[in-house]
């Protein structure tokens, strides 16, 4: 029950505060060994990757994601360097057009206690290994949460994304990850904009009110034309009978 309440509270929080995207800093891995500031409402989960020649996933640790929970979740990343062995393997996998996969465990970012954030299962994503190599390990990882703060998906793209078959000569280029990490919550879809529309209508009618020319009625505007027309009609009508009468007389 308590959990349910927390859950509802979370939804209300989300209603009140539009959750925005927080870009985390890029970690270039050199400072991977630095002690990370652990905050009270944060926890870290492993980020794992797998690249195998036979394409059977064998996940190994790539780094750890430090997730800050709360209303505005944020994320930062600490990751290891690729070992020489791994670098060679990655190049081999790229040569046979294998996949480079990553996975993160499913977590709940709005949990208050440690025991609650962990959930069963993983979220996975992939890029082509060649794209990883050719981009010199520069990738963009995005974590997606749902309305109530559950992590629902992860996506990875490399920049540039294409595989052109260019050789990466320098081994150093494949040593450190150059990762841009962000966490995305759903945006609020807009409803119909009635207020603005009404305001605009009011402004228009006000403008109309100010302009006396517009306010004049049809008759007030065109009285001279109507009068002229009426006189013309009267004249033509009155002119006819005498003419007819004249003919009769003669």
């Amino acid at each position: 029950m308590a959990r349910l309440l927390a859950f509802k509270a979370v939804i209300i929080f989300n209603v009140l505060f539009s959750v925005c995207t927080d870009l985390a800093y890029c970690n270039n891995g050199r400072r991977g060994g630095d002690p990370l500031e652990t905050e009270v409402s944060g926890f870290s989960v492993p980020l794992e990757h797998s690249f195998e020649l036979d394409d059977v996933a064998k996940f190994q640790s790539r780094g750890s994601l430090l997730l800050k929970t709360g209303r505005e979740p944020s994320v930062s990343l600490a990751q290891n360097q690729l070992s020489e062995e791994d670098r060679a393997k990655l190049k081999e996998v790229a040569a046979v057009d294998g996949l480079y996969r990553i996975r993160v465990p499913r977590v709940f970012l709005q949990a208050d206690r440690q025991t609650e954030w962990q959930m069963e299962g993983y979220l996975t994503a992939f890029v082509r290994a060649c794209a990883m190599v050719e981009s010199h390990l520069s990738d963009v990882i995005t974590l997606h949460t749902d309305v109530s703060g559950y992590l629902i998906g992860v996506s990875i793209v490399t920049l540039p994304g294409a595989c052109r078959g260019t050789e990466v000569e320098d081994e150093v280029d494949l040593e450190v990850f150059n990762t841009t990490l962000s966490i995305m919550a759903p945006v609020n879809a807009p409803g119909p904009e009635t207020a603005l529309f009404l305001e605009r209508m009011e402004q228009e009618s006000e403008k109309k009110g100010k302009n006396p020319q517009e306010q004049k009625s049809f008759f007030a505007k065109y009285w001279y034309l109507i009068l002229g027309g009426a006189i013309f009609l009267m004249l033509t009508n009155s002119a006819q009978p005498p003419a007819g009468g004249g003919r009769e007389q003669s």
Partner: protein
Amino acid sequence: MAKLILLLLELCIIFCVVHAVFEDQVGKFDWRQQYVGKVRFSHFDTQMQSSKKVLVATESNVFAALNSRTGELFWRHVDKAGPEGNIDALLHHAQDAILVVGNGRVLRSWDVNIGGLNWEVLLDSGSFRSASLVGQQGTVKHVAVLKKAFISVHYLSNGHQKWVENLPDSETVDYQTVYSGGNGQVFVLGVVPHSHITIVVYSMEDGEIIKQVSVEAPWLSNIPASCVVVGQGILMCADSTTMSLNTLDLHQQTQMTQIPLQSLGLEADPDFHPSLMSHQPNAAQKPLSEFFLQLGPERYLLLQLNNGQIVTLRDFNPALLASFATTGEKTVAAVMSPKNKTACSINLFSADTGRRLLDTTLIFTVDPNGGKPEKLHVQAFLKKDDSVGYRVMVQTEDQTLTFIQQPGRVMWTREEALSDVVTMEMVDLPLTGTQAELEGEFGKKADGLFSMVLKRLSSQLIMLQAWIAHLWKLFYDARKPRSQVKNDISIDNLSRDEFNLQKMMVMVTSSGKLFGIDSKTGAILWKHYLDNIPSNAAFKLMVQRTTAHFPHPPQCTLLIKDKDTGRATLHVFNPIFGRRSQVTPPALPQPILQSLMLPLMDQDYAKVLLLVDDQYKVSAFPSTKNVLQQLQETASSIFFFLVDSSQGRLSGYRLRTDLSTEQVWEVVIPTEVQKIVFVKGKRPNEHVHSQGRVMGDRSVLYKYLNPNLLAVVTESTDMHQERSFIGILLIDGVTGRIIHEAVQRKARGPVHVVHSENWVVYEYWSTKSRRKEFSVIELYEGMELYNSTVFSSLDRPHAPQVLQQSYIFPSSISTMEATLTEKGITSRHILIGLPSGGILSLPKMFLDPRRPEIITEQSREENLIPYAPELIIRTEWFINYNQSVSRVRGIYTAPSGLESTCLVVAYGLDIYQTRVYPSKQFDVLKDDYDYMLISSVLFALFFATMISKRLAEVKLLNRAWR
């Protein structure tokens, strides 16, 4: 200000595209067929000899009167769908038809002649058990309705309640039947299962209980299923355990008399439950003492109860169906018995003697592509010589009604299965023989110049011959009076027309019957009934080979999947003729999770269908060597996704060369918060003509045209109106990348989604404002394209720009679909089926997130309509004028050969076919185009130039002489 008005006027002129048809165009391009559904009750209107009405109440909650001469509808009343409008009982007396609707919620009386409502009364709540007309002294003036705990009697004339009485011990006794023999007493029969029957007799006058008895009957649990009332109020029950008939005189006895079937010299099938059928011609009279006993699936007996003795009048073996009918004073029994494989014969027998009546044989031909006969409705009438004539309406398993007259002339058939179309496709018609001949010339390999010339000459000769034959037919027809000239559409003369406007509609119905319908006329050209269809089957219809690959026949595949077990079967057929294909479909031993059509083709031009089973193994159909080789080559680029909405799991897979799969991505949406209701991709045959939109400043905004994009719609599990929401996720189906994620707060389903080009339109219920709202999402790549030549999901690193806008819609909707044209040049419209039966064609232009709130010079340049929160329904947007489509469930759109024209079929209880022209008919000359004028002007100009040339020459000559 004047400028603004001018602008508005201008906009009106530009955008008020008139879609309405002219009066003389009604029915020219469109047709509608109205259906009633599977018949549950039917009555012939017998009050007049010349009456032509058949009253039917159906399982689709429709009450209608059919014309028994033509099969057309006189009138039809469509009630609410679902259990609320369910028709529990239909009673018919003289001019009145009494209906009990919605589990005994409403009692209605209809006037049979005009279909008008006489009266309607709401009944007290309680589950409905039975209803019966109650007669007294030869006239019927009341109707009795039995519910679980009480019985009420109403006047037939105005529906007022005469009396209502609670039933004694209604907690323990299950009252099931009400019966009246026309003597001022109402019998209510209830049963305590496996114990005893309770009979309560009420006085008709004031509802007083006259008598209450209980009778031992430990073997009985359901009275209507095993008992009938025969003769002088004698309850006759069939007991399948002891194989005996049990009789009980409702007036006197308190003990059942058991008559073993063996004592009558009868033997029953051991595992068949014998059933009884009696007949009460008039509610004011006693039932007949003759009755039918069904002893086996193909055996009926006509028995008579005579002073407590049962006499066998006649044994019908074999007999498929039996039925009683009364005309005047005479009652006859009609029995249908199988004759041979393709025909059944129906004969009339005198009910009181069991003698066969002379000259009453009627032959019913069983359609080999139809179902078995299920019900027999007999209309008997007296001929001039006082003998009995009759017509029958046979209802078959495939929901077909066939009305037959002696000696076997089919007067009409109605295909009621079409009232529940599940899915459909439109297939191009084949070329004519001569066109195919010409086509075939290109297909063959070139073998020398001379032979090619000869071939061309011969095919040209054949075409000339065909043309002369056509001219001759025209000339021949012209001499005949117009009424005789019929251009019958039959399967033999089907051919594609000039603009490919006429197509074959292949419709799959929930009963498992397939139809091929000509889209131009609505004529049913073929039908095929698939038996052994599970009741909860899901269907998916796919076109594997179109008609374009002459001489290979076109091929459609229907995947039939049992929703519970996941087991699937394939039905492969030719969509033009409806015949089962020569190709044997593979047996599918494993439950099927997903099926996908690949653009790959085998050497016979059939597209490859991949089926993924629950072991994530993939099988291909057709699975020839060629196909497997192609699959191996392209395996690494074949991705597919699976959705498990019960766990909120979306997962992507990639095909391996050995036809196994590997999971490549996974997205999990927690089911505690929201559940997936829709996953919609784009239609594979959709073309987008322009890659971008030209902006006011002449720059181009490029569309994000990802063919693999999926729109996932979720609904919150929390239904509280403050907290409920609708979630929209746009996911790339190949990489699993979430492109966009949005929530519509304070919103609730049902959601309808259309996903096409670079936009998603969805409709939902706003709980905050209590109204229906539309929202549109459009995706743009930006001012420059990442890779303009080809789109790859694996190489599109930048997320698209997302624009969204919402609107108020003044009506709820039933279904939604977007128009589709050949090349995608024509602007798009959204076709919306409304519950009122209208089909609205809403220009997509009104659902454009770039509609500006403040008009600027640039937006005017771009022809954007200024934003207005409300979408107004204009009456000229209704494409079906007064041809309402009841309970529209789906709209199907197909491109035609003309770019301007899109073919539309709306189906529900009715079927409506029409054409729409979203950007008007820009590529067609109008019907009333003045050819005379243009040609006379041309000729006049031509002669004028000739004359003036001549004159000029003369003038020149004259000048030269001077």
